[in-house]
């Protein structure tokens, strides 16, 4: 019964989405304020029905209703309840329902928190989001119904969730990632609404900015969690593989980063308007492309289209409609919104432009590397794969180009600045950064030129920020007064840029200084790695809720003092019989120790073991958390919620004008 209610609620949600996509848009076109004012109510109704549907699906999973096909193939009675719940989105059909749920959450949020928005704009924005919801809900209902039953012949037990997904990180990773992906739909909807209305001004950028920042922050956290999960769960200590699935989430992030920065220029100076709109379209299109690439099975093989032609066709048509439709609208309307503002070459505007070019080129090169094998395969020219060396060779120089510009950003001024001023401002930071870059890598022999470069770049970033921060405080009469005068927008920028510097250090230090040994160890053996002694004591059998495991016991000492006892496991899951490695990690701010079990080797209880020493690997994830925190801080700026009164007045004018 419950699955049927869920199915019915999903159909009702589709109906509401259809009304939301059509009636308020018609109202905005015709100037019918009754039709327009339906939009917020419809948006909340959409959330309610998608929410009911999601709750029904989750109930089916939690109650082990194996007559539902999805539950039977992705869950099991032995699965802990926590993972039964996360199994809802551990599959294609369920993750689409999650997508729809998060989309309706964003839509309802826009409806509820936009009282300062003119009704005309609000109804257009909500209509666009309703149209996206129509696409996703019908995709779910037509091609991948999550509530399909297995009647008669429901199995007694399910075939279990993929053990790789049975992990706390994977409970929150997909929702956060989707919050980011789908969040860009708000920026997209604002952009389309602006194109429809033909009015693109500073207030448009001001409305769009907090939503874009929030979405970007969620996406950052989602990607960071994915990388962290890969590190501790896949059992070989890597944290980024340039895997197509990772790239699918990384491309919208790159485009979104460009968007966040060009929105700043659009809001403050009324510049790059049509460019910003184009970036908003790009960011969301890449999100859609990413979702579909991952979820349609196109990525593992182009032949997935042949396996389920219906799904593949739906995807292609929907993508073509969204991307083609919005670009056509852009081509028709963009000339009307172009700006006539000029700026000097030595100014913050041109620095932001550099940022945009770098990030867009980075996004395009990643897109190219991801799509290249698909294109070659589709053309029948063989099966190629584009590996990490390609992405590293392209991406690393691009980021190295970015940082010098990024260090200038905070101290630069809008419209017109002087190179002489930059020189005098940044002379001391440059010298100190050079000094740090040359001396700090001396602490670790042999001298590593890449680490020196990374230290130089991130010190340059850090010191530029510190200098600017200090100057802002010094010009105030008192320290608390000066701190209070700093806007959340500025603080957010400082935090996010510091996070970026931490990321650079973490990534380069880990890549350059990691020590990794794969070796054969007998119980009782000890190995030394980067000054730590790993002693392999024994292997014991342990039992978990739904698995049995061989657990290796390790004692790690340094100079005779105990550091950690580590217990990696080799698990065999009972329901599916699949084997999985559970790594043991001793985490620290400056180094991680990582032990994973390979397979038993030989007759006398010897095992293949993976011992890693990973310096500063946490910095990368801490940096990502800082970036997200910065974006949240900036989004909380009161500036975006003021001007309620003038906007309300504008509301009336807009209505009369329409």
């Amino acid at each position, binding site marked *: 019964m419950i699955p049927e209610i869920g199915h019915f609620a999903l159909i009702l949600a589709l109906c509401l989405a259809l009304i939301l996509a059509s009636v308020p848009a018609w109202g905005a076109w015709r100037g019918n304020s009754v039709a327009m004012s339906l939009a917020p109510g419809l948006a909340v109704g959409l959330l309610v029905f998608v929410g009911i549907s999601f709750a029904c699906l989750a109930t089916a999973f939690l109650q082990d209703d194996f007559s539902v096909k999805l539950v039977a193939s992705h869950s099991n009675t032995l699965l802990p309840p926590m993972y039964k719940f996360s199994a809802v989105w551990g599959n294609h059909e369920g993750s689409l329902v999650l997508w729809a749920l998060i989309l309706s959450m964003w839509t309802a949020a826009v409806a509820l928190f936009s009282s300062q928005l003119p009704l005309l704009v609000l109804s257009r924005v909500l209509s666009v989001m309703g149209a996206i919801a129509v696409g996703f809900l019908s995709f779910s209902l037509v091609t991948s119904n999550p509530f399909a039953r297995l009647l008669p012949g429901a199995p007694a037990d399910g075939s279990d969730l993929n053990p790789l997904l049975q992990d706390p990180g994977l409970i929150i990773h997909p929702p956060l990632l989707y919050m980011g992906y789908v969040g860009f739909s708000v920026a997209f909807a604002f952009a389309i609404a602006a194109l429809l209305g033909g009015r693109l001004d500073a207030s448009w950028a001001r409305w769009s900015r907090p939503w874009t920042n929030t979405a970007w922050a969620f996406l950052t956290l989602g990607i960071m969690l994915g990388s962290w999960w890969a590190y501790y769960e896949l059992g070989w200590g890597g944290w980024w593989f340039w895997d197509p699935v990772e790239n699918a989430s990384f491309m919208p992030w790159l485009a979104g980063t460009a968007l966040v920065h060009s929105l700043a220029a659009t809001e403050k100076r009324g510049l790059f308007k049509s460019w910003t709109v184009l970036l908003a379209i790009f960011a969301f299109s890449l999100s859609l492309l990413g979702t579909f690439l991952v979820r349609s099975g196109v990525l593992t093989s182009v*032949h997935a289209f042949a396996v389920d032609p219906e799904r593949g066709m739906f995807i292609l048509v929907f993508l073509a409609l969204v991307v083609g439709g919005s670009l056509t609208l852009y081509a028709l309307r963009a000339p009307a919104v172009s700006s006539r503002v000029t700026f000097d070459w030595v100014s913050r505007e041109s620095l932001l432009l550099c940022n945009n070019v770098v990030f867009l080129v980075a996004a395009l*090169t990643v897109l190219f590397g991801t799509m290249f094998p698909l294109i070659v395969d589709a053309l029948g020219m063989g099966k*190629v794969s584009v590996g990490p*060396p390609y992405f590293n*060779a392209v991406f690393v120089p*691009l980021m190295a180009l970015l940082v010098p510009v990024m260090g200038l950003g905070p101290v630069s001024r809008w419209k017109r600045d002087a190179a002489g001023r930059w020189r005098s401002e940044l002379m001391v930071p440059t010298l100190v950064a050079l000094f740090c870059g040359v001396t700090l890598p001396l602490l670790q022999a042999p001298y590593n030129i890449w680490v020196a470069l990374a230290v130089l770049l991130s010190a340059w970033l850090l010191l530029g920020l510190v200098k600017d921060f200090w100057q802002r405080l010094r010009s105030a009469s008192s320290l608390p007064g000066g701190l209070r005068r700093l806007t959340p927008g500025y603080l957010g920028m400082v935090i996010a840029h510091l996070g970026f510097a931490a990321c650079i250090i973490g990534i380069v230090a880990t890549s350059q200084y990691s020590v990794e040994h794969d070796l054969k160890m007998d119980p009782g053996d000890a190995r030394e790695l980067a000054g730590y002694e790993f002693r392999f004591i024994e292997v014991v059998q342990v039992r978990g809720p739904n698995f049995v495991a061989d657990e290796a016991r390790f004692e790690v000492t340094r100079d005779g003092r105990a550091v950690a006892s580590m217990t990696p496991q080799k698990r065999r899951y009972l329901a599916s019989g699949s084997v999985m490695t559970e790594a043991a990690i001793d985490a620290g701010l400056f180094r991680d120790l990582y032990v994973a079990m390979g*397979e038993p080797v030989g007759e006398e209880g010897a095992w*293949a073991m993976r011992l890693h020493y990973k310096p500063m690997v946490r910095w990368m994830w801490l940096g990502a958390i800082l970036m997200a925190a910065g974006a949240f801080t900036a989004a909380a700026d009161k500036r975006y919620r003021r001007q309620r009164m003038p906007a309300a007045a504008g509301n009336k004018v807009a209505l009369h004008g329409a």
Partner: protein
Amino acid sequence: MHPVRKQRLYLVLFIALFSSIAIGLVVYALRGNINLFYPPADVAAGMAPVGQPIRVGGMVLEDSLQRSADSLAIRFKLTDYQESVAVVYEGILPDLFAEGQGAVASGVLNDEGVLEASEILAKHDENYMPPEVTHALESSGYDEKGKAR
């Protein structure tokens, strides 16, 4: 020239310069870093280049896995049930690597026709088969159990 136009000109020049640098990087990076996939039959027929990074995929032949006594070196054969290719590898194998299962090895073919693998990929869940392996089996005309279709 009108200042706005002049600015646009510089903008276009800047973007053109930058994107040509990027395209140069992409082409340079692609040259050494794409590796083609070969089914075992093609390798046996001598169609795969020696000394260049390639990938070979198929089923791990039953009873072909040999381990070294004192290191992690292993040797096994990948087959499409038409031909098979010997693979040597030193390191830890993925969890789902086993005889009679699909796997893809990437590495360099040496003069004796043995693939010196630097990475072994196996499927990452029970029902998943690397697409290249499916393809190799399709073209050899055998199913994954080694029966002729």
